[in-house]
């Protein structure tokens, strides 16, 4: 019961945080609220028995990536509010309608899609049992290093390429 309440609280704060983040003129406060959203979703991950994902969501997203954003904001000295940042009514109308359309389509997709598929036997409980058996990390690590090992390695290469690319791009024209 308390868990359900917590979950719904996380959900509500995630939505709230997202709304605030989108509407902030000051980029730094947008970053702060985004970090809040990430924390809220991490909480939801936890409640959904994805403990490992919850952890790295906090560390990776909430920590590393958002800090990176902050660094860039500071580096470029963009940390102040800008009136021109928000679009006018036309942009709002276009963005709003597309957004609402997305909401509708996604909702229909989730509901209808779930309806179309046969309900699989693995319920929330099964995942929890596996976690109890293999550990919170193990339940993710086993398939990762067994079935998906090649994908994992490729991801590693991708990160390497990203590192090189980032350095090259960020280094600029200096010779």
């Amino acid at each position, binding site marked *: 019961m308390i868990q359900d309440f917590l979950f719904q609280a996380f959900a509500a704060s995630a939505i709230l945080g997202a709304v605030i983040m989108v509407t902030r003129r000051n980029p730094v406060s947008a970053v702060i609220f985004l970090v809040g959203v990430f924390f809220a979703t991490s909480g939801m991950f936890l409640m959904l028995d994805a403990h490992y994902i919850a952890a790295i969501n906090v560390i990776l997203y909430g920590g590393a990536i958002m800090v990176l954003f902050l660094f860039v904001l500071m580096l470029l000295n963009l940390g102040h509010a800008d009136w021109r940042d928000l679009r006018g009514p036309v942009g709002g109308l*276009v963005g709003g309608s*597309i957004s609402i*359309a*997305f909401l509708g*389509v*996604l909702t*229909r*997709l989730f509901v*209808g*899609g779930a309806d179309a598929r046969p309900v699989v036997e693995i319920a929330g409980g099964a995942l929890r049992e596996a976690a109890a058996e293999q550990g919170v990390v193990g339940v993710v690590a086993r398939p990762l290093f067994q079935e998906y090992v090649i994908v994992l390695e490729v991801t590693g290469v991708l990160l390497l390429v990203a590192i090189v690319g980032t350095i090259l791009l960020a280094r600029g024209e200096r010779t």
Partner: protein
Amino acid sequence: MSLGAVTGSGSLVATALGGQEGAGAGFQPVLPWLILALPLLGAAVNGAGAFLWRDDKRIPTIVGPAALLGSFAVVLLNFIAMSGAEPHGAAVVGLWNWIVSGDLRIGVDLQFDPLSMLMCMIVTGVGSLIHVYSVGYMRDDPGYSRYFSYLNLFVFFMLVLVLGASFPLMFVGWEGVGLCSYLLIGFWYENREYANAGKKAFIMNRIGDAGFLVAMFLIFTAFGTLDFIPVFEAAEGTLAYGGALVTGITLLLFLGCTGKSAQIPLHTWLPDAMAGPTPVSALIHAATMVTAGVYLIARTSVLFALSPVSQGVVAAVGAGTALFAASIAIRQYDIKKVLAYSTISQLGYMFLAVGVGAFTAGVFHLMTHAFFKALLFLGAGAVIHAVHHAWAHGEDGHGDARHGDPNDMRNHGGLRKYMPRTFVFMWVATLAIAGVPPLAGFFSKDEIIWYSGVYGTPILWGVALATAVLTAVYMARLMVMTFHGRNRTFGHGGVAEAGRRLHEVPAVMWAPLALLAVLSVVGGWANIPEALPLLPTVEWLHHWLEPVFAPAIAVKEAHGFAPEYRAPAGGGEALWAGVSAAIAIAAVVGTVRALSPKPVPTEAESEAPTGFARVLHDKWYVDELYDRAIVRPSLALWRACWRIVDAGLIDGAVNGAGRAARLLGWAGGQLQTGRVTTYLVAFMLGALLVLGVLS
């Protein structure tokens, strides 16, 4: 030249013709190919000479006339051989297959029959004389070699025209002579007028040639062959008498004739053709090429005999042209123009003759006309030559512009004193053409007048008679203006200077004149009418040509042709011969009497004629009419085709399509703003679409 092929191909034709060929069995042509080869060789040698030894005049001087004389000698041999063989039918000599395609076979076959031999005699005989004359006339021309090359080539094509045993081969000669005519009219191509005249001649001839071509197609479709002998033999069986097909064929052929022989409505090129050197006018535009139309009708006499309508048209056009051209000739000042219209008029006579069915008379007049008209032209050439030299060898060397046109008779006058020989020869020719007995023209023209009345209608007869009067008048006027009275070459007061400068032409020029003068006298004796049996050669030409024209006469007789031999106004041939001779003499004498006392103004002094005389002087404004009604509208239409249809409509559509594509591309390009947001919107709409379709 493979003789095996010659006889082989020839016999092929002979067997195809069956028994008819038996008539020609007695006559085998001697060296037939040499007749053609010599002028062609001459043309080639002289043509090469025009490039290689342009300044050396010895080679063309020898080769040019020699090629013709050689050819004439061979023709003469054959002529004698043919007259020795009785009956003298047709012999066909095949040289090689020209066009063979499906059931169409056109051989390079030569047909030797009385008609073609007679024509060959005229072409090579008169041609030889004119070649010799040209040696003198063209002596100082820088294009001497080229001239002889063209002239030889012309004779070659003329012989092909005459000897060709099929319509297409005749057409080769037909267009070939047109080409040479074009080249020779525009011989002095630096003068734009002259070059234009050549072009005009070619194009007007082409109009007729198109008719000739379509006629050939009709013949081939009807007969399955284009060889003369099979066509003529099958004609009566294949074509209905007076039917549309034969009328169409013959009228189209006649269209070809009007082009080549300068009959109404395609006559306007011939006067302009006088731009060429005068011997050319004599050979091509008087004696030979322009008579090809008459020859064609004579050759296809069977077909024409089958179509009374066409015959009527031919006769009417011939008579009309004769009168029309004669009326113009009366008011011309250019000596060559007078002769040109005279030629058109005389050709009209010939068409009148073949039109009413007097084929022999037409060919007879063709022959005598070749003699006296060539003589007239060469004489005129001598006059022009003399006047030109008198002017050109003046103090400043080139006085043409100062003095005027050497062709203009107003610049002549009194030449009798300076050019006595030419004067005599010219009078012989004049009397011949006027129809004064016993000269050539009397017999031939009288025959035409007689038959136009007997075979034709009273109107044709009247026109023929009227034209005879006009002929005598304009010729006498020409003689008076040129040779009589006082000399005006150096103005009215320049008689003394004229005496120093004007001379008789050299022997190489007057000798051919003399020979032609003899022929102009005796030429008519070849066909003495039965009514006037003065010589043993009564109806000789008639008999000679009988094998050629007998089928046509037979056709006509089979369809109710039975003329009564008396003139429309009554009386027999002898009577009317006497009458027409009297008319001619009276007209000549009258004109000389009337004109001689009158002083003639020089070219510079004379005023433009007025009234009806002006209409005649300006040739009834036919050229202007054609220019306004045909040439200019055509050019306007053609320009419109180019500017409006081609560049406007079609290219407009094409370029419009291109522009439309570019516009579409530009419109599409406008979607590419280059801003991320635009693409994001598009991307999201796309994602929505995909998701929407999926769900």
